């Protein structure tokens, strides 16, 4: 129920913000609306740029597709560390990073940060219903953020957003090699005098391309054929190796 109110609230707010006079205050775009994961992919930098009045502050939030994550806690059993209790969180963004022109605590009212989920501590991740009775789930939520941060998928601190002449701004966001595929939301928020003065969203697609994409989809869609093919390749490789080294 609480979440439903939040969603409704965010929706109404977005309707209010869709008023053209406000929407024009901040615009945002990307150097490339598509990140391609190919055989040589080892992460990539994405340039985000836009226009905003220089009497306000801008924060950009990049959010990956929503997933469910299981967080497990280890306990010592007979000297060995074993996974014991677990909590599943829904609505976890696969990726979360920000860019802003100065530290958030200098201009961002906590109310806006909370409603718009700006800052990793404000991401509204709640345990799935069957885990609601885990009393210390808050600890699991913090651990989820910490683990995501260790994998370079969450960033606690925003990266630099630089204002250029003519009200232009730009920021470079790093996408690591282990980034998830899917549709990413990129939101630019303009904050002036403690009020949200503008907000614009653009989308980014992260997709696998080429051989990697074909192998992945083949392995998932025709897993039996994939397994058989893997064996045939291995058997041929073994036979070829034997034949090659027998002659020499």
């Amino acid at each position, binding site marked *: 129920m609480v979440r439903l109110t939040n969603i409704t609230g965010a929706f109404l707010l977005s309707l209010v913000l869709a008023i053209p006079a406000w929407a024009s205050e901040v615009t945002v775009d990307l150097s490339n609306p598509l990140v391609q*994961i*190919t*055989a*040589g*992919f*080892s*992460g990539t930098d994405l340039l985000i740029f836009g226009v905003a009045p220089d009497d306000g502050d801008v924060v950009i939030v990049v959010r990956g597709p929503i*997933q*469910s*994550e*299981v*967080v*497990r*806690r*280890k*306990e010592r059993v007979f*000297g*060995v*560390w*074993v*996974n014991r209790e*677990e909590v*599943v969180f*829904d609505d976890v963004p696969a990726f979360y990073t920000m860019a802003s022109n100065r530290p958030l605590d200098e201009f961002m009212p906590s109310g806006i940060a909370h409603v718009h989920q700006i800052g990793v501590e404000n991401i509204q991740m709640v345990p799935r219903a069957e885990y609601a009775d885990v009393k210390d789930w808050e*600890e*699991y939520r913090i*651990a*989820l953020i*910490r*683990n995501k941060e*260790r*994998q370079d998928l969450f960033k606690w601190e925003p990266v630099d957003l630089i204002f250029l002449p003519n009200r232009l701004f730009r920021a470079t966001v790093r996408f690591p*090699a*282990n980034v998830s595929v899917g549709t990413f939301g990129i939101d630019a928020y303009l904050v002036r005098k403690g009020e949200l003065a503008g907000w614009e969203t653009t989308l980014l697609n992260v997709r*696998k391309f080429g*051989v*990697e*994409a074909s*192998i*992945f989809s083949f*392995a*998932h869609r025709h*897993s*039996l054929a*994939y*397994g*058989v*093919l*893997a*064996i045939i*390749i*291995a*058997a041929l*490789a*073994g*036979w070829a*190796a*034997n034949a090659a*080294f*027998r002659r020499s």
Partner: protein
Amino acid sequence: MQIYLPIAEISVNIFLILGMGGGVGFLSGLFGVGGGFLMTPLLIFSGIPPAVAVATEANQIVASSVSGVLAHWRRGNVDFKMGSVLLFGGVLGSSFGVWLFTFLRDSGQIDLVIKLSYVVFLTIVGGLMLIESIKSMMMRRRDIRAKAHTHNWMHGLPFKMRFRKSRLYISALLPIAIGFFVGLLAAIMGVGGGFVMVPAMIYLLGMPTAVVVGTSLFQIIFVTANVTVLQAVNNQTVDVVLAMLLMVGGVIGAQIGARFGGRLRGEHLRGLLALIVLGVCFTLFLDLVQTPADIFSLGGVVMH
């Protein structure tokens, strides 16, 4: 140079993987062992998810066993009948193993079980090898021939079969049970299981040493092939790109290793291998008992 692995979904250094394949291939050529029990832990240490490491290594072992069995087959050192009976147990065991693997993965215990299995089996195998090689280095006595075979309760079991090549007349239940157990290990640990199969064939079944390795390799091909297909179907964890890189490195390494192996004495080789095995084992053991940097971990994306 980085390469993105499509199933593991991570980017790895291509030369690191080729080097690991070559290094383990070298050792397996040098010692005449499969190398799965070294490769899988190395893959896990280098950041490949354990589930992917185990399934992919099974795929690679298909290649190395095919290559190995051909050489033994040419010399007539494969007992196909015994191999098939072992295989019958192996297919049952590995199928059960993959089912168990999927179950353990879903309940978050697979990493623990993989590592624990390694610690237990590597301790036993490494320890026995070390003791044996030290003994033979000290005594240097040759030709302590094993008795043909002693009669015990095993020979009272039903379903007796004659294995001409192995010169045995024993119950089929025994090789089926051994095959089942080794198949289970293959599925959970990502190994061929030769390090358990070979001693079991010699000491439990009483097979002649000449046909042991070829017959073991013969059944390993099909057991690991079974594991590969079942892992691909149930868990989608077989990474063919990774497997092919390992195969390339492994094949070259094994050939070089085999040439070096001829220059070293048997008991020295076994002693050296025992130390490597115990080293890997100790590293995994530390991993299990040391307080982890973070007692919380992510178990991956779960479905609704």
